[in-house]
């Protein structure tokens, strides 16, 4: 009963999925060309009796004059050694080649798919046995084995199909197994088990749908391989004598003097047929892979043209007289995307950083904080461009520097500690080696002797890693130690500014506390200025001097840390603080901010926080609020962007 009730529903979903697949596939040129090439041949095979001018089997009335005639109006592709029309044989030959190709591939895919699935899913001894068997099959050269088997048995079409099919499954088994293993270890399979699903359900609903795309691509390639194998066997004279395939046409022409007579047409056309089909299948396979394998897609922010300087930039300005270490003024960054309006990832951000100061940059994921940091060192992906504003470092405008000049600033003056220390370290080189490399790369004049080693040890000591860990690999480090190593690397060239991009996000509270303590001590010891990028308000309260709260790419509020927590003026800051658990008031219910941050490609018309703001009124939905200065004090500027603050200006 269950199945009948669900059948039409499932069918509908499959139809809509196929439609969706076709929409993407129809935009893939390579795949479409391959598909068209294949369809031509398939149509030709189906309608062979209609298209072929001569019946291929009528060789009764052959005369000596008919043998190896060049192409003419009666025989478009000429005639062969038996006086038969090559064009007709070519058309009928496609039937044999395609039949063998598809049926043999069907056998291979079923065997390979099943073995791969079973080995990958069940693992253990079963997997060991199946995969060793596959390995043995893989090292046996296919073609000689096929030749032997076909030669020993009767060379009928059926035999050939079975031999090719039974020997061609090895790569499929391996591909399917590795995909099954990858899918099996994903969390949603564990969740399905926790829900109570049995093995059959997990295989059919969770594993197969994700193995299928790869199996489809693999099937297309196996078909082309089977056609090639059939041609090779037939060419060697092991084809079915009653079914003329392209390979056999080549065999006959080659063995019966076509070369010596110069009858190129008897060789060229069947050869062309094989190339056409195999090329068509390969292109189709490649196209399918591009469509079905999501890993080959590029991120929407990565696609795009190379950096173009914005046209609407203000004239060059001088930094303000106070000369802070780093001054970011009215910085705006767009991501350009062909055919779409640019995404305004960062808009009109300004802040300053003094020597030894620690500023917190707070915002939710997607608020543009990482984009802003990358732009300071001009490390944006190619689609990102600075369209307005300046970044002054020691009075130098970083946005106006050449690539070479900015390279001299990177790492030596300003360096970055990236989020996710495991991915930022090279797993096959020791940590000491990688720190050494950072020194050599950025300080080419550094002596390549004992002093280099001493410097590495000194840097490790600075971040609290014992010298004997120098020659260890990243996987031998714990998460906290890797993050320390990343900090050591960032310190390699004695920078004045360190940008720490969510350095503690993936770490436990205790390790987080260790890293924060380390950064704070480095700041005092080395006089470092630090930009601390985070979404964690608690961390900011613990250690920052000033705070910039970003929302949807714009400044929500910028003030001293005490003002942010004790007199927040922007509704977003207020709500964010209320949403943060406070252990000093354990019984207090957390208030949440309804809704979600805006997407860069769908920014609201007015204030970007308006859709979630509890205090929003009409104007907020239509007009973007300007930055209001709330404090006249030079040293403790307090800025917030909210229409409600207009009066208090």
């Amino acid at each position, binding site marked *: 009963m269950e199945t009948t009730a669900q059948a039409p529903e499932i069918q509908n979903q499959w139809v809509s999925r196929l439609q969706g697949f076709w929409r993407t596939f129809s935009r893939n040129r390579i795949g479409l060309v391959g598909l068209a090439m294949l369809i031509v041949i398939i149509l030709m095979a189906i309608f062979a009796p209609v298209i072929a001018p001569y019946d291929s089997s009528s060789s009764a009335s052959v005369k000596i004059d008919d043998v190896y005639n060049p192409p003419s109006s009666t025989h478009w592709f000429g005639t062969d050694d038996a006086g038969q029309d090559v064009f007709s044989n070519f058309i009928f030959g496609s039937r044999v080649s395609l039949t063998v190709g598809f049926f043999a591939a069907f056998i291979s895919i079923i065997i390979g798919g099943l073995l791969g699935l079973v080995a990958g899913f069940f693992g253990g001894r079963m997997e060991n046995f199946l995969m060793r068997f596959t390995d043995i099959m893989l090292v046996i050269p296919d073609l000689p084995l096929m030749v032997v088997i076909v030669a020993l048995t009767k060379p009928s079409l059926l035999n050939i199909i079975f031999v090719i099919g039974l020997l061609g499954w090895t790569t499929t088994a391996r591909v399917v197994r590795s995909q099954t293993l990858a899918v099996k270890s994903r*969390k949603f399979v564990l969740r399905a088990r926790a829900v109570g699903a049995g093995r059959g359900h997990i295989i059919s609903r*969770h594993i197969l749908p994700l193995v299928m795309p790869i199996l489809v691509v693999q099937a297309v390639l196996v078909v082309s391989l089977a056609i090639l194998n059939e041609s090779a066997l037939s060419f060697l004279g092991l084809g079915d004598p009653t079914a003329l395939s392209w390979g056999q046409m080549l065999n006959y022409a080659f063995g019966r003097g076509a070369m010596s007579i110069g009858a190129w047409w008897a060789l060229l056309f069947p050869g062309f047929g094989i190339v056409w089909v195999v090329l068509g299948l390969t292109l189709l396979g490649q196209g399918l892979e591009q469509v079905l394998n999501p890993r080959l897609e590029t991120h929407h922010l990565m696609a795009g043209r190379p950096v173009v300087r914005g046209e609407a930039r203000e004239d060059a300005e001088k930094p303000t007289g106070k000369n802070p270490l780093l001054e970011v003024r009215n910085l705006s960054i767009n991501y350009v995307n062909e055919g779409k309006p640019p995404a305004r990832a960062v808009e009109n951000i300004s802040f300053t950083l003094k020597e030894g100061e620690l500023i917190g940059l707070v915002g939710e994921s997607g608020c543009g904080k990482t984009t802003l940091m990358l732009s300071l060192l001009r490390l944006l992906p190619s689609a990102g461009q600075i369209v307005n504003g300046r970044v002054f470092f020691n009075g130098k405008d970083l946005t106006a520097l050449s690539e070479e000049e900015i390279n001299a600033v990177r790492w030596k003056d300003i360096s970055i500690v990236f989020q996710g220390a495991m991915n930022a370290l090279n797993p096959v080189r020791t940590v000491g080696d990688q720190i050494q490399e950072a020194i050599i790369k950025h300080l080419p004049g550094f002596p390549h002797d004992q002093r280099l080693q001493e410097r590495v040890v000194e840097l490790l000591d600075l971040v609290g890693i014992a010298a004997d860990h120098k020659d260890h690999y990243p996987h031998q480090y714990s998460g906290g130690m890797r993050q320390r190593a990343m900090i050591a690397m960032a310190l390699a060239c004695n920078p004045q500014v360190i940008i720490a991009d969510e350095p503690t996000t993936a770490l436990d509270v205790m390790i987080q506390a260790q890293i924060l303590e380390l950064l704070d001590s480095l700041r005092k010891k080395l006089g470092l200025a630090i930009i601390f990028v985070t979404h964690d308000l608690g961390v900011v309260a613990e250690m920052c001097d000033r705070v910039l709260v970003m929302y949807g790419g714009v400044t929500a509020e910028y003030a001293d840390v005490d003002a942010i927590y*004790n007199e927040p003026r922007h509704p977003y800051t207020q709500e964010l603080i209320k949403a943060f658990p406070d252990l000093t008031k354990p019984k*207090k219910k957390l208030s949440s901010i309804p809704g979600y941050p805006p997407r860069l490609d769908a920014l609201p018309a007015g204030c970007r926080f308006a859709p979630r703001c509890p205090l929003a009124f009409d104007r907020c939905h239509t007009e973007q609020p300007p930055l209001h200065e709330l404090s006249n004090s030079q040293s403790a500027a307090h800025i917030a962007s909210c229409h409600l603050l207009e009066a208090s200006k």
Partner: protein
Amino acid sequence: MNKDHFLEVRGLKKYFDADRPSLFSREARYVHAVDGVDFTLRHSEVIALVGESGCGKSTLALLLMGLEEPTEGVISFDGRDITHLNDRERKAVRRKIQMVFQDPYESLNPTQTIEEIINEPLVVHGIGNNKNERDERVIKAMEDSGLKPAEVYLKRFPHELSGGQRQRVVIAAALVLEPEILLADEPVSMLDVSIRAEIINLLAELRITRQIAVIFITHDLGSVGFFADRVAVMYLGRIVEIGTMLEVLEKPQHPYTKALLSVIPVPNPRLRHERIILQGETPNPIDVPTGCRFHPRCPVAMATCKASDPPFVSFGKTHQAACLLLVK
């Protein structure tokens, strides 16, 4: 039925093979992931299991779900031993105990629609006589999880939703079975702060509206504050302190709990305080330290801590901690 012992865990242990005896090493070595855990869970109670990574809290969750077989110990649910079950019995228990995973990006099958995902448990357990009945349950579960109106989400795919919405889908797929216990393994650690409160509030509501007991597993003591009834602090495979939320947060007894509490950031710069930062990291659970397993990192360790394993000391009816300093 004993109301106080809805779910009871006694002497639970799980050792994984680290090294099998082989030609080169004669001794087998084990990862002591969970090494003797006892606790009870009452009806519609929220208990928070807190600890750093490597303390065994996630393994404990898998043991409670029956996704791993315990090496030793007993788990009983509703007065029945559920430690080792065959497939059919296990399936029946799973209807009652459901789990919410840490990573809402990974725990949903990208090829299924939201409707298929939430309907799946019903299909697996053969619940509902017809499609209408199942649809009703799916929509009820979605609305209880805050996915309102449900119709908007039914035909969507996981990648079209935000992290918070996905976590709601995971919760809805657990609720649709009407479980009595919900195990939440770090359900908010991957989410933004503004969304975290929402999910925690949702879990808190569920225990009131549906009388569901919640085991909330987290490394962040700060996030358990307002909705946990009791807190259990784990270290290296064991519970070192357990008590009501206020007892543990306001009068912590174990030095480890004290340290954990001191490093939780307080969102007010005027309350910056001295932090007890433990050096090093949780030792690997293969070579567990002798005596008190916390002694190598303990700021107040004594000579005797190295030798003897501390027993639990009670403070009042509900509060216990295992530390030699507390033994009088």
